[in-house]
Each structure stands twice: as C-alpha cells, then as structure tokens.
C-alpha cells in the first residue's frame, strides 16, 4: 500500500486540463507541478481553475501550499482565511496555517511593526474559530471582509500574551513530533520491516520512517488509504458485535501491513511478505506502548 502514483494518471490529468483549463482536475495536476518544483505554473493553473470554481477547496489548498513553498506567507494566509471562511474546521488549512506561522515566526521581530505582523501574531486556531463565529450570520454564512477586519483590530491587544503561549505550544509540539519520529525509526530496525507511518484519524501523516528498501513513498496517499481501510474494518467489527477493533494485519503478495489505532492516531507498519508476524507484532506492540506514553506525558504537562 505504501506506493507511487502511476505516471499514466498524470498524463490523463494533463490532457484533460490542457483541453479545458477550467476542468475540476486542475487541482490534482497543479499539486503534481508543485511537488516537482513548478510552483509558478501550479499557481497559474490554480488561479484559472479557481476563477471558474471559486468554491473548490482542494484547488485553494494547493494554491496555499504553492504560496507557502515560494515563501509568500501573506498570500498563503489570505488563501487559508478564504478556506476557513467556507470550512472553519478544514484540517488541511489548519495544518498549513500552523506551518506558515512557524516559518513566519523565525523572521518575527520583537514587537509588531506592521499590520501584516499583527495578523500573523494572532493566528491560533481558537482565535480564528471565535472570529469566524462572531462574523457569521444565523444561517451560517460568513462575512469574509469583516473577518479580515476583525483580525486587524484584535491584533494589537492580543499580540503579547498570544506570542508567548504560541511559542511554548509550538516548542512542545516540535519535541513530540521528534519523539514520534524516533519511535518509528526504532521500528524499522526490526528485521524485514521497511516502513512505518503514523497518521491522524483522517489519514494525514504525523511522522514516518522508511528504510532505503521502501523506495519513494507517497505518505499522504498511503496514510489516507490506510485510515480508510482501518475505519471500514472498525465499523465491520462493531456491526458483527466483536467490539472495538484493535489491530489489522493484511497479507499481500508484495508485503504485510500492520495497522493499529493508538489514541486518535493510526500506526501503520509495512514489512516484507516473508516477515515473521510474531516478531513484527512484538515491535509493533512496544511502539504502541511508547506512543501511548507520549500522549499521556503530553496531557500531564
């Protein structure tokens, strides 16, 4: 399951988008261009596509990532605000916003000296949700212009307290991700295990470790598909009244896959087809215990 995207799919996308620039496939092709370093081409494609389909969230996420990649954090944030005004809980937008804030904070001076920095300093998820809620009508429609104005006016008073709190939270999170990566690196030391991936409940990668044997792996696709399989299997075991699903082992021609839930996350291990299931299961269980321990220590902080 930890695999590449076939080249034929890319060619089909490209043909369709060339024939119809407003095709809904623009987001997928633009993302491919972005991943291969062609950010400006990806931006142009997204802008044409979004002119035709302004509510296309996927396309706007790709555009946001392009701006982030070329370090135009202001434009990236503007696009994130547009996404959050449509879907205030969009997990991809929140993740990119966090990354943009982190990247931007490395260039932050000691105090706010511009309107841009005021807005960037205030960006925590709670504050965004609160502002969006305040500027929404009863039927849920969000006034985008007033959301942007609200951020500007609130920025001054919130800057000091939020900066310190956000810095501490980010530092704690960096340590946790580093700890996860260390645990996953330990797993791939098990004989015949060549990949481990930790994803959240919707399939977004949190940490990963792969040996050279794994080759090039599309973590996002693998994570999303694994999360989907796990959730389908979990629903099945509940319907058959076997209780909560603990672990899934998939035996295929090419590899063995081990999936298990740990808290709100899913741990995936990929091993050779001839791997000793019992040995991998022992490593798997040790890793699960360590990840649970990290979660407990984080809550007690």
């Amino acid at each position: 399951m930890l695999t590449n995207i076939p080249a034929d799919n890319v060619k089909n996308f490209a043909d369709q988008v060339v024939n119809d620039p407003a095709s809904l496939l623009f987001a997928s092709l633009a993302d491919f261009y972005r991943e291969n370093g062609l950010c400006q081409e990806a931006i142009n494609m997204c802008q044409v596509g979004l002119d035709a389909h302004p509510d296309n969230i996927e396309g706007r996420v790709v555009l946001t990532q392009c701006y982030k990649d070329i370090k135009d954090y202001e434009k990236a944030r503007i696009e994130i605000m547009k996404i959050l005004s449509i879907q205030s809980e969009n997990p991809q937008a929140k993740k990119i916003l966090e990354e943009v804030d982190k990247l931007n904070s490395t260039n932050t001076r000691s105090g706010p000296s511009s309107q841009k920095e005021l807005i960037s300093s205030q960006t925590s998820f709670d504050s965004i949700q609160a502002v969006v809620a305040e500027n929404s009508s009863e039927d849920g429609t969000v006034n985008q212009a007033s959301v942007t104005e609200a951020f500007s006016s609130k920025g001054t008073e919130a800057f000091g307290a939020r900066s310190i709190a956000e810095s501490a939270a980010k530092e704690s999170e960096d340590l946790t991700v580093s700890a996860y990566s260390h645990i996953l690196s330990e797993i791939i030391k098990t004989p015949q295990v060549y990949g481990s991936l930790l994803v959240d409940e919707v399939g977004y990668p949190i940490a990963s470790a792969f040996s050279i044997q794994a080759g090039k792996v599309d973590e996002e696709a693998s994570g999303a598909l694994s999360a989907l399989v796990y959730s389908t299997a979990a629903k099945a075991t509940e319907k058959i009244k076997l209780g909560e699903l603990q672990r899934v082992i998939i035996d295929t021609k090419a590899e063995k896959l081990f999936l298990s839930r740990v808290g709100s996350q899913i741990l995936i291990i990929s091993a050779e087809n001839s791997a000793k299931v019992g040995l991998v299961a022992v490593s798997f269980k040790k890793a699960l215990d360590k990840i649970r321990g990290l979660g407990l220590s984080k809550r007690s902080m």
Partner: protein
Amino acid sequence: MKDILNQINDVPGVRGSIVIDKEGLVVASNLMSGLEEKTISALVATIYAEIVKSLAAGREQEVYGVQLYANEGSIIFLCASYCILIVITEPGTNIGLVSIKMKASTERLMELL
C-alpha cells in the same frame, strides 16, 4: 464443503466459518448462534473490496488474507481465486493453528469449486 468447515470449527476458540464469493454471496456456512452469515459476508466482502481498491491505487497487489483483531473476537479471512474463507474466533484463540487449518481447507475448497 460442510465437512471442511466442521474441521475448522473443531479448533478450540473458533465460533464459526463461512465461504463466500468475492461479491459477498454465501457459498457455505457453519456458524454458532449469535452470528449472522449475511452480515458477516457482506462486511467482509466490503473490507476486501476496500483493501483491493486501496492497494490498486499504486500498483496491483494480490491480497492473500486479512486478520482483524477486536476486543471480543477476531475475524480471519483467506482469499482464494474465486472465494473467501472466513473464520470468526473468540479472544485468545491460537490464530496460528487456525491459519494452518484455513490454508489446508482453502486448497481443498478450490478442488471442490
């Protein structure tokens, strides 16, 4: 076919076994009370199809079998060319022994089908 399933069910901890085709239709079954063959067959076929689709997103991979471990039991299924053999067990069952029996049974089932 019933004899084959009876032999699997003789393994301590096994609550039942079913043979289905890949669309989820029951070919043969031998389940203890409390287990519904149609529910199990439909859900296993869905899981199998989901796994095959996910694996095919990159490159084709043949699925040999899947083991689902839950709090109150396990579902093990082995995939053959035309059918899927499913076994439901209680917690703590020797899955290794069940797997050996299932592999032998799958070969015999393929001869019959």
